């Protein structure tokens, strides 16, 4: 078990290293890094000074090591936008908004997806099943940027039930979380439904019934515990979907998180910030996947003894 986690940690380290190489190569090999870092209105003298400061006259491996040293000490440079804040600080200050939104989306997605999936499986062909399948179909087909706009138009502009955008009380969370989570909700509903159907037909469910356990225990304990394993496997995909979704949803709802920061810094070609966002997000993503691996080991005893 410890060995598995150790292997994952080493893999995580290499994934991060790889991402840093990608960022490094993209900044140094495509286009003019000096122009990128300085932005548009820079003078010739500034450019020469920065070239020397960045050590761009040095060979590439040396440049990379310097870049790596800066990044590991938390120095991503300063934002080119007004205020000239340190890029890393800017990213970290936007992190809580993103994490809270993703957390809310994750919570409601799991809760509703599992309940939907279970009820759809135990009452196959019923109204609940039909609705769950319809939600799953629409959820997997609707583009989130459009869904966000439609929800905002209906519930904020027309009905005035909820705020259109921005960051604040729980009302502010409803529409962005729904938009961010619908795709995952659809995926989890389908996943739980099909794995519940499989579990409910198994021999160990028969034995649970033979013991005289009430149907609720049979379904929600014995069948569901096994059906959650594929859901945990799916979580890795889930985080990738969440990161993509965060960029889109935060942009649509003007949510002050790192997704919108990434988008804005790209539009304004604020390269130090883009670098910081990409590396921080990759680190988060890798950490989340590491957590999933540990969770997997906890939930499935077969993984535990395997090593």
């Amino acid at each position, binding site marked *: 078990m410890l060995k598995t986690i150790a292997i994952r940690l080493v893999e995580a380290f290499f994934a991060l290293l790889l991402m840093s190489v990608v960022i490094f190569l993209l900044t140094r090999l495509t286009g003019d890094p000096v122009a990128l870092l300085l932005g548009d209105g820079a003078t010739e003298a500034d450019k020469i000074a920065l070239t020397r400061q960045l050590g761009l006259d040095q060979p590439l491996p040396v440049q990379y090591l310097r870049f790596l040293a800066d990044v590991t000490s938390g120095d991503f440079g300063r934002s080119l936008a007004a205020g000239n804040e340190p890029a890393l600080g800017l990213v970290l200050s936007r992190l809580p908004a993103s994490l809270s939104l993703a957390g809310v989306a994750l919570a409601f997605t799991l809760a509703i997806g599992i309940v939907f999936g279970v009820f759809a499986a135990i009452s196959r062909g019923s109204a609940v099943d039909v609705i769950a399948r319809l939600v799953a179909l629409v959820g997997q087909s609707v583009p989130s940027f459009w869904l966000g706009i439609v929800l905002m138009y209906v519930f904020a502009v027309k009905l005035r039930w909820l705020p259109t955008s921005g960051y604040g009380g729980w009302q502010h969370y409803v529409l962005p979380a729904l938009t961010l989570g619908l795709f995952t909700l659809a995926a989890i509903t389908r996943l739980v439904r099909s794995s519940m159907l499989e579990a409910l037909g198994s021999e160990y469910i*028969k034995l649970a*019934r*033979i*013991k*005289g356990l*009430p149907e609720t225990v049979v379904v929600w304990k014995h069948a569901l*515990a096994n059906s959650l394993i594929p859901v945990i496997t799916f979580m890795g995909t889930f985080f990738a979907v969440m990161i993509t979704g965060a960029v889109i949803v935060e942009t649509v709802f003007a949510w002050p998180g790192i997704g919108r920061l990434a988008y804005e810094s790209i539009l304004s070609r604020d390269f130090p910030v883009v670098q910081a966002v990409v590396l921080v997000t990759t680190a988060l993503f890798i950490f989340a996947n590491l957590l999933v691996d540990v969770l997997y080991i906890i939930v*499935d005893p*077969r993984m535990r003894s395997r090593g």
Partner: protein
Amino acid sequence: MTFPASIREASSPSPLLSVEDLTVRVGPEPDAPALIENVSLSIAPGETLGLVGESGSGKTTTGMAIMRLLPQALDRGMHGRILYQGDDVAAMDAKQLSGVRGGEISMILQDPMASLNPVFSIGSQLKEGLRRHATGEGSLHERAVRALDDVRIPSPEARLANFPHQMSGGMRQRVVGAISLARAPKLLIADEPTTSLDVTIQYQFLELLKALQQRLGMAMLFITHDFGVVARMCDRVAVMYAGQIVEEGPVRDIFRRPAHWYTRALLDSVPTVNSSLERLPTIPGSPPHVGARPQGCRFHPRCANAQARCQEPPPITGAGTGRAVRCWFPLDSERTIA
């Protein structure tokens, strides 16, 4: 506690279980093909009834139906009565069923590999059932240890923390047995409990089951395709073919004087000490599929003594006497033992 033998001799007028005209169709439609048809059987307290037949004969379906464990579509296609101490199990809802299962009627399934839930420990799966059983001495933990000890699992205390994948097949089957018997049921349905085990372990498990049965005074419906197992375990036997019971009687009697041609053919294909395996006769052809079962006597296309009349449904001779047969031309001679 009375011995099973004395109960048998008393031949109690009210059986523990009495199945009446049980039919299971593959769906609720009245014309859906039937897996089993008009199956009737009864089991006295403490008695062991063997249910024998080739695979596909409907014996597992019968066992599952009594336990109400059939898949939903089949459960909806079920008709007839399953009287347990006078209450109709066939008409029970989920809540009533969970009152009967485990404590009154229990079951041991075929496949020990798949019968245990892979994500819970043995202890948790065992205690779960025990918790619903009010009587018994000692703490839940002590009772769980005793249940494992009863099926002769070595160092039961340590085994409670194990997960199913950490145990061998024979060990798992004992755990399944411990779980099924933990609440001392009055009736146990054992569905080929030993087919997936190797021969020495099979024998051990059967002996264990027999010993526990005597101690608990439990009745059994023993489902098997193996007449050798029937001889060892059962008091009476019912032979199933293509969804129907074709013959029923005391084990010794059936062995000595089979009345149905199918029973005799089955018995002839059982290897004995004297017969060599190569010359063992087998029944020609194979059992018909559900939905393609012949008119009249279902065995007649494979029967050595088939006649024109066999295309009409055969009468049941000796119903109610405990020695019944469904055949136009039953055998009546003493069977010559090779």
